[in-house]
């Protein structure tokens, strides 16, 4: 599972995650003890600071280049960064443009929540019923590969342009990566473990909870990560196509009314929002998988 070979994942989905973050390296038994542990912690801290400096300089240099290169810019489409930052403060910090974020995040949360929960549940169902899985797989693959934005016009005719439409398209598009990864992860469960559970007389629900789910977890999380990207894209695209609010709507209207600086502030806010959502996901992933590997390590010790 921890093998970083890129093609080791499911045939269709392996690549949305890159090897470094796909499955965090199993951390050793938690809590290094004694003086050696403290020394190591200090050393690790130092190393982290150095590492941060190692890449921060590049990020800072890039922003500096942008700042100075654009300082005297008279190009209509590329205003000086200073102007953008000023406007960003006016609109998003003191102004009320931040109210645009609420509807976006609501649609995202509802759509992604439905997609995640539904993907895991449906994936588990398909894993459990093998004939169903095998006979529906071409259909599911088609839905997965179909570029979801192509469905937007159809979804608009069905649901109008309000919240329902956005939640519907986000959840429909984002459900497939999680679903297919869940099926694949559960299929990778060691058959011996399943036989043991059966021999021990565990109920199917108990087996699912204590044998199947933990073993499939890393891949389910990888699926959820792919779904996250899809959900963010469709959150923005659905607002750009048909909406009266939201960050995507803000950026596109600013562009159409040639309020270029406003558009740039929107782009920056959206970039920050996307990164923030990813960061939250990574933090949650670490938390869940740390527990996962911690439990595994403890299990290994006991035996």
């Amino acid at each position, binding site marked *: 599972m921890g093998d*970083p*070979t*890129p*093609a*080791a994942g499911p*045939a*269709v989905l*392996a*690549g*949305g995650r*890159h*090897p470094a973050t796909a499955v965090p390296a199993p951390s050793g038994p938690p809590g290094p003890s004694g003086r050696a542990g403290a020394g190591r912690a200090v050393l690790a801290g130092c190393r982290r600071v150095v*590492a941060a400096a*190692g*890449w921060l*300089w*590049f*990020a800072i240099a*890039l922003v500096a280049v942008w700042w100075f290169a654009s300082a005297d810019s008279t190009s209509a*489409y590329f205003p000086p960064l200073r102007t953008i930052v000023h406007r960003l403060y006016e609109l998003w910090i003191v102004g009320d443009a931040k109210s645009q974020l609420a509807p976006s995040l609501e649609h995202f949360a509802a759509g992604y929540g439905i997609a995640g929960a539904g993907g895991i549940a449906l994936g588990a169902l398909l894993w459990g019923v093998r*004939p169903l899985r*095998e*006979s*529906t*797989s*071409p*259909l599911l693959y*088609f839905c997965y*590969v*179909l*570029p979801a*934005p*192509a469905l937007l*016009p*159809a979804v*608009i*005719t*069905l649901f109008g342009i309000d919240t329902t439409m956005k939640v519907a398209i986000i959840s429909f598009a984002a459900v497939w990566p999680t679903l297919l990864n869940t099926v694949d992860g559960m299929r990778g469960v060691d058959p011996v473990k399943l036989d043991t559970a059966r021999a021990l007389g565990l109920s199917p629900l108990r087996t699912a909870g204590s044998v199947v789910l933990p073993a499939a977890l890393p891949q389910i999380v990888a699926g959820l990560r792919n779904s996250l990207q899809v959900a*963010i*894209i469709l959150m*923005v*695209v659905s607002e*750009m*196509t048909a909406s009266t609010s939201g960050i*995507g709507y803000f*950026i*596109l209207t*600013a*562009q159409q009314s040639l309020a*270029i600086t406003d*558009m740039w502030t*929107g*782009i920056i806010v*959206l*970039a920050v*929002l*996307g*990164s923030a*959502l*990813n960061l939250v996901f990574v933090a949650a992933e670490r938390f869940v998988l740390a527990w996962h590997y911690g439990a595994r390590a403890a299990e290994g010790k006991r035996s």
Partner: protein
Amino acid sequence: MTGPEPTPPAAPARSVRAARAAGLARRSGRLTGRLTVLAAVLGLWQVLSVTGYLRADEFPSMTRTAAALGREFGQVGFWVDLWATVRAWAAGVAIGAGSAVLVGSLLGLNRFAHRSASPVIELFKTVPVVAILPLAILEFGPTLRMRYVLVAFGVFWPLTIQVIYGVRSVDPTVRDTAEALGVRALRRFAVVTLPSAAPFIATGLRVAAATGLILDIVAELIGGGDNGLGLGILTALNAGPAAYPTMYAFIVATGLLGVLLTGAFGLAERRVLHWHESQREHARGPGAVSGG
């Protein structure tokens, strides 16, 4: 689909033949199941339309959509749209992938460079690509160029990360051996680095192919243009309920194009990397039962 079946070691010829027969039976059973499900879904769609559960002015019936799809296949306009989408996609993926391989290789070769740049590229990877779409529309207008620029931009970041990891994954012993043997840098890159990075790049490319198509459709729907499958969908939407079968026909065609492009990349990956350990599962396959 399934791992190799455990077969008793005795009478290998017969067990192999039996396993083959069983595999064949299972595969034909699977095919029947798949066709049945497909027929059932299409049938259900038709029944829901005929009984009026799906309103005709909102969701056209299956037969009318299929007829529209057949009609579109016979029209030049459809193929012009398809070609425009494929062209924007191909140009974008080629530019994005080409620069990703170049930049990723250069960064991957130097520890300091990749340490400095990777986090920034990681950050860019998390930025929703559609954020720059309005900028691209301003700069290039509703053109093919606007579309492939967006595709290339979206493909570049994740693929670069993938290439860096591929290049860094080279077995140091092999690299040092090549160096000790006096293999020159450029040749070392071609003979040692690139092959060992290939699986990473191939996986990245397969994902890039799918992402690229999504981004081109988005660019068509929001940015506009002359021809493209996304524009076909949009035109049919604007023509009103009478054209909805055509709209769904275009959506299905877009999905089929997705299947085709992703499938082609997956197949190429398997063909080109058949020697690599990550592909051995495929090579073994369910039919070829080996003794051990």
